[in-house]
């Protein structure tokens, strides 16, 4: 996804003089082409994240459309207060591109995971939050950011994620139905989408599969329309099961007094000491295709 994202930014930079890309010492092999094409609109601000976000905000205030590229902990955690005060409070149209969503980088260790980023980003008013499921959605997120006057956060995995959409994504702001079905709906975001898609293969009853790329603000009207004839919602995310999409849906159901059963699949809220690869980690925390398939089966039985 990261290559599609940077390619799209570079394409725009060729047309518009106000596109600017900042990295905090990340992007080897990914940003090289952009850097070569637009050296005057590229900065590597090193291992100094507070300064990086402050400068991004300052450039934004002078009219540049700034993209900041780094792994999630270094666009959101280390510099949370700068993102809060300098970008979101001042409502400067800076786009944060966070790489390594969820446990993409396992087994690098907890310092390199981003299993609570959506929970954190949701505390920031003005911030638009995206978690695209595939490169097609990722490019759409960049296009949204390019025309947005608000700050944007785009969380992506790394590279090599397959395309899951077989049709054009018309509106990235709304949940997208990938697969029709009834009774049960699976809502998901991010690269764990591949687990959901493979879970749908060979199930006895196919649930409705809905990708939810924009998590804040959430288009509940559109979502509600897509959830007619549904009794059980399963949320799947490579994020803590609390604080992300599952929580957003739970708050919506409770707040509106809706009649859905909700099953939240996600990573247990704990510091991860397991040493496993990405697939192993997904199995361990119950967000693998097998676990999703089993949950779908049970949802129909209990429905």
């Amino acid at each position, binding site marked *: 996804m990261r290559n599609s994202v940077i390619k799209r930014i570079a394409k725009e930079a060729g047309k518009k003089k106000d596109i600017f890309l900042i990295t905090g010492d990340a992007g080897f092999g990914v940003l090289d082409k952009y850097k070569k094409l637009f050296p*005057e*609109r590229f900065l590597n*601000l*090193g291992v*100094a994240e*507070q*300064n990086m*976000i*402050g*400068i*991004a*905000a*300052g*450039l*934004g*205030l*002078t*009219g*540049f459309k700034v993209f900041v590229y780094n792994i999630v902990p270094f666009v959101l955690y280390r510099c949370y*207060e*700068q993102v809060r*005060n*300098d970008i979101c*409070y*001042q409502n400067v149209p800076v786009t944060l591109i966070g790489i390594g969503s969820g446990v993409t980088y396992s087994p690098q260790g907890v310092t390199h995971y981003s299993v609570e980023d959506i929970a954190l980003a949701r505390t920031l008013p003005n911030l638009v939050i995206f978690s695209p499921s595939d490169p097609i959605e990722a490019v759409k997120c960049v296009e949204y950011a390019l025309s947005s006057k608000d700050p944007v956060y785009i969380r992506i995995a790394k590279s090599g994620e397959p395309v899951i959409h077989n049709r054009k994504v018309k509106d990235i702001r709304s949940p997208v139905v990938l697969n029709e079905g009834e009774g049960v709906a699976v809502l998901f975001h991010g690269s764990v989408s591949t687990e959901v898609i493979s879970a749908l293969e060979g199930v006895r009853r196919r649930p409705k599969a809905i990708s939810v790329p924009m998590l804040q603000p959430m288009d509940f009207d559109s979502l509600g329309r897509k959830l007619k004839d549904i009794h059980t919602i399963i949320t799947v995310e490579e994020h803590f099961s609390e604080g992300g999409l599952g929580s957003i849906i739970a708050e919506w159901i409770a707040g509106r007094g809706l009649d859905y059963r909700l099953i939240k699949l996600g990573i247990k809220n704990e510091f991860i000491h397991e040493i496993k690869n990405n697939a192993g980690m997904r199995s361990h925390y119950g967000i693998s295709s097998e676990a999703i398939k089993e949950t779908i089966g049970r949802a129909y039985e209990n429905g």
Partner: protein
Amino acid sequence: MDSYKLQDTAKKIRRLIIEIACRSRSAHVGSSLSCVDILTTLYFHAMNIDKRDWKNRDIFVLSKAHAAMALYATLACKGVISKKKLFGYMQDDGTLPAHLDRFTAQGIEVSAGSLGHGFNIAIGMAYGYKLRGDGRRVFTLIGDGESEEGSIWEGALFASRLKLDNLTVIMDRNDLQGYGRPSELCYFEPMEDKWKAFGWKALRVDGHSFIELKGALKGREKGKPKVIIADTTKGKGVPFMEDEMKWHYFIVTDDLREEAMRYLCR
């Protein structure tokens, strides 16, 4: 503007600070008074600030934003904000908050309040204008306590590498922070040497001398950002507040207001 006129203006700004501090029962009176002469020199001498040519104005970022009263009073004196707006400072349903919100008034370039933020934003702005070939300058005032923040030194490393000779940083070196003196809390000095070692043009002046401030603000060294360490006295201008840590927090009662005004009306 000549130094006598600047002195009169600074006195007027100090009186406004005492007035709004008293009306609002606001803290940070000492922090505001210490930088008045610096702000006066900037707004009434060094910076290009003209309401009729607002688009081309120089930019001032108050990074030590707890001294917001000093900026509000200066902007009111300059005619950028109205007296009505000024007197709505920290009132219930008022106009101006204790720390800066750029959406509240003209002339508030950057929202700030947490230390070690405005400085880095100012670096970004200076770089942005430079890239655009826009000749305006960017000034920012940082505190000495604020300079304990890591973000200040992150920015110091990069601003010189970016050759920001359109950026001037002034440090309000009053040697008093919230609960101690920088010189006692950490290995603070030698400040000029530290900035020089980071690739900056560094100067040290008496932060209450208009002649010295004017001289230091003049000119630029090509390819280098400038820092002016301005030695100041917290609470400057009101003798019973000068160099007293409690005036980081104490409020100006009606009686103290009268007493302060006696010094500031002379």
